[in-house]
């Protein structure tokens, strides 16, 4: 059985996994939160990701960068869920959806602009939003971002340019334009 296979040898493997993966959990939560916009859904996603990582740890290629590896798992799970939720809009609780929960409250006037930015970000297509987050917030190299997204580096670069341009456009002109229309709500 799978469980029996991890005995004493498994302990070393598990120690190694904890050592390499545990420090990445806050960043995994951050990427998940930026994509899902809601704490519970995001942490649920990270939990799913960690479970998969545990069962697939032995399939990892030796020397493979653990950060790119686990972000790939998280990214793929997130895309599956987001696709599913666009087919069937889920109700978002008002508290959970409040974008101000992302904004650092340090400076009030920046906080507002920050909120506009988070709203504008949500309007980018997934392929642009994800590349922008992976490169700027998670600081993945272009090559690692390409691995996580499963596309060539050239595609990463062109999506990144489009994402930056579009976000700038949404943020400039009228800040109202960057406010999303009210959240989709399910009609029951």
């Amino acid at each position, binding site marked *: 059985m799978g469980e029996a296979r991890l005995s004493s040898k498994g302990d070393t493997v598990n120690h190694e996994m904890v050592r390499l993966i*545990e420090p990445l959990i806050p960043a995994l939560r951050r990427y998940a939160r930026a994509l899902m916009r809601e704490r519970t859904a995001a942490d649920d996603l990270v939990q799913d990701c*960690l479970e998969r990582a545990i069962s697939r740890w032995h399939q990892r290629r030796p020397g493979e960068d653990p950060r790119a590896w686990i972000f790939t798992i998280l990214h793929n799970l997130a895309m599956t869920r987001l696709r599913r939720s666009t087919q069937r809009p889920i109700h978002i609780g008002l508290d959970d959806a409040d974008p101000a929960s992302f904004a650092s409250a340090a400076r009030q006037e920046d906080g507002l602009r920050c909120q506009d930015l988070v709203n504008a970000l949500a309007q980018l297509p997934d392929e642009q939003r994800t590349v922008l987050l992976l490169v700027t917030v998670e600081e993945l190299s272009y090559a690692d971002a390409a691995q996580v997204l499963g596309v060539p580096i050239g595609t990463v670069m062109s999506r990144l340019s489009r994402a930056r341009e579009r976000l700038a456009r949404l943020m400039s002109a009228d800040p109202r334009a960057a406010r999303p229309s009210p959240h989709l709500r399910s009609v029951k």
Partner: protein
Amino acid sequence: MNPLPITEDDLNGFVDGTLTPERHAEVSAYLDAHPHIGRRIAVYGEQRDMLRDAFAPVMDEPVPTELDLSRMIEERRLPRQAPRWAMAAAAVLLLSVGAAGGWSLRDLSPPTSEGVQALAREAAASYATYVPDQVRPVEIRASDRDVLAAWTAKRIGRPIGIPDLTAAGYRLMGGRVVPTEHGPAALFMFDDDRGTRLVMLARPMKADPALPMSPHTDGALNGFAWADDGLGYSLVGAVAPDRLHPLADELRRQIRSEA
């Protein structure tokens, strides 16, 4: 010699700090000479800082207990000590079900029905295919229970209750739609974290819409099958019949009470 032309990739690299110092200086000079592009790149830099600030607070949050990696690994590895109260609760439950006449030997009859025999074969075949699968024993995991319920309901043509055996020490792993000779069936898999997996198969029963519970066996694999309200069920596992029977009864009880 002329410097290489500045590309969009250089501009992104400038914002993300990935250029060599020489290239960085060249791009910087270019942006000074082309202020309107310089302004665009300054905006991108500002975007970058703001995005990082916006999501920085998440990094400082305490990591929730459910995301404690060491604990998750432990829980997978060690045989789960079913809490004593859960065992006791299960025992009480089974006693009360037994007392109410829900499970007793008179309920058992030999599998004479063709329909139940087919169902038993199909459940055993699904068990043999999916239970030993270490990579993907189930298609939809228990965490997506709603998706699983919706999918099986859609393919089978009516909702199939997903029972809960946690009180008896079995956790739902998830499930999938599987093919049978009689059309799509819903498969739900359970395990007790000691490597014992059980499979419940459910599909419409055209010929025998209602049948009492009957045991079936195939080598080390035991099963109990029954039909209610046009749906046939079989619970199979490499578990002794006297341990499997109360679980099958509990499944039937839950499914009946949900219906």
